[in-house]
């Protein structure tokens, strides 16, 4: 004879990640490290922007470089003489708090003021996974097309700073970067949006100032 029983489970898979993220943030707070999660489209300029920030800012910087399979970005950061941990996500499309917990463990936090975490290039999946950062910067570029923002609203809703990069190419690809700025404003009226070209340097100083302000206000 068999009987059927109902079992309450109430286990939220998302909450498990969020709890770990909180733990990461407590650890970073204890060491006075300000963490910036850098998310955005593939090839939008995340690595280039972090490289430029390393060179421009007076803070002691460390980096976690998330990549699907290669250690290519980690290698680029190493050339700037900063502590770097490369994370391979394998088949995964995003970093999660557990991966970051391991990476934090391998970084000299006591010798750092800012930690940049370069997420996997993806405007969808990282939304579901807090890492424990203090600030989230979204980097897209004009070459993704001027409907990028409309098509991925959630990542902009949560953002603390939005960078629209490669404006030097806007005319060439026939994209209206002001429309992208306006679209972000409709989704997240409070967020600062900066148009940049890392090729010409346009807007870069503003990004430096914006991050600096977040760090000081924190």
């Amino acid at each position, binding site marked *: *004879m068999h*009987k059927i029983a109902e079992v309450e489970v109430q286990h939220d898979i*998302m909450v498990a990640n969020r709890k770990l993220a909180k733990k990461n943030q407590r650890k970073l707070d204890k060491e006075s490290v300000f963490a910036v999660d850098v998310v955005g489209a593939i090839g939008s300029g995340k690595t280039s922007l972090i490289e430029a920030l390393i060179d421009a800012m007076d803070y002691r910087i460390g980096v976690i470089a998330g990549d699907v399979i290669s250690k290519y970005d980690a290698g680029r950061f190493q050339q700037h003489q900063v502590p770097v941990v490369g994370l391979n996500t394998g088949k995964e499309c*995003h970093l999660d708090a557990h991966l970051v917990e391991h990476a934090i463990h391998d970084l000299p936090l006591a010798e750092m003021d800012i930690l940049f975490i370069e997420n996997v290039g993806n405007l969808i999946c990282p939304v579901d996974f807090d890492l424990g950062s203090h600030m989230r910067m979204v980097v897209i570029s004009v070459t993704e097309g001027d409907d990028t923002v409309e098509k991925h609203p959630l990542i902009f809703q949560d953002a603390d700073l939005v960078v629209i990069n490669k404006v030097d190419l806007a005319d060439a690809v026939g994209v209206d970067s002001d429309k992208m700025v306006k679209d972000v404003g409709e989704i997240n009226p*409070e967020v600062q949006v900066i148009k940049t070209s890392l090729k010409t340097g346009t807007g870069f100083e503003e990004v430096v100032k914006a991050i600096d302000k977040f760090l000081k206000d924190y």
Partner: protein
Amino acid sequence: MHELSMAQAIVDTVLDAAEKNNATEVVEVTIEVGMLTMLNPEQLKFLLDVITEDTLLENSKIIIEDVPVEIECRNCEFEGLANTDGSDHYLAIVLCPECGERNVEIIKGRECNVKNIKIEKSDEDA
């Protein structure tokens, strides 16, 4: 897409609960998926069907319940269901239905919760 890793985590959770309760089979699994997650319920269900082969969940019925977005408005203190323009998964932009503000705290809508399971167990265990 991370539906596969989510599906795996769900199966692990269910198997754990089933084993703790001496189940001989899992008959039904109910999962709550928030409208603000980047999970596609159809895809999730398909993957669950595939990866549960040869487990206690092999023949189980998978029920996925959409969880609408609930908010607390920081502007007018409204608490309850949000207005989401476009009820589509991934496309929901959250607004306060009272004052139209976007400055809201999300109370519900970001979960992927294994709510409960129905299991079969032998009488001796009852």
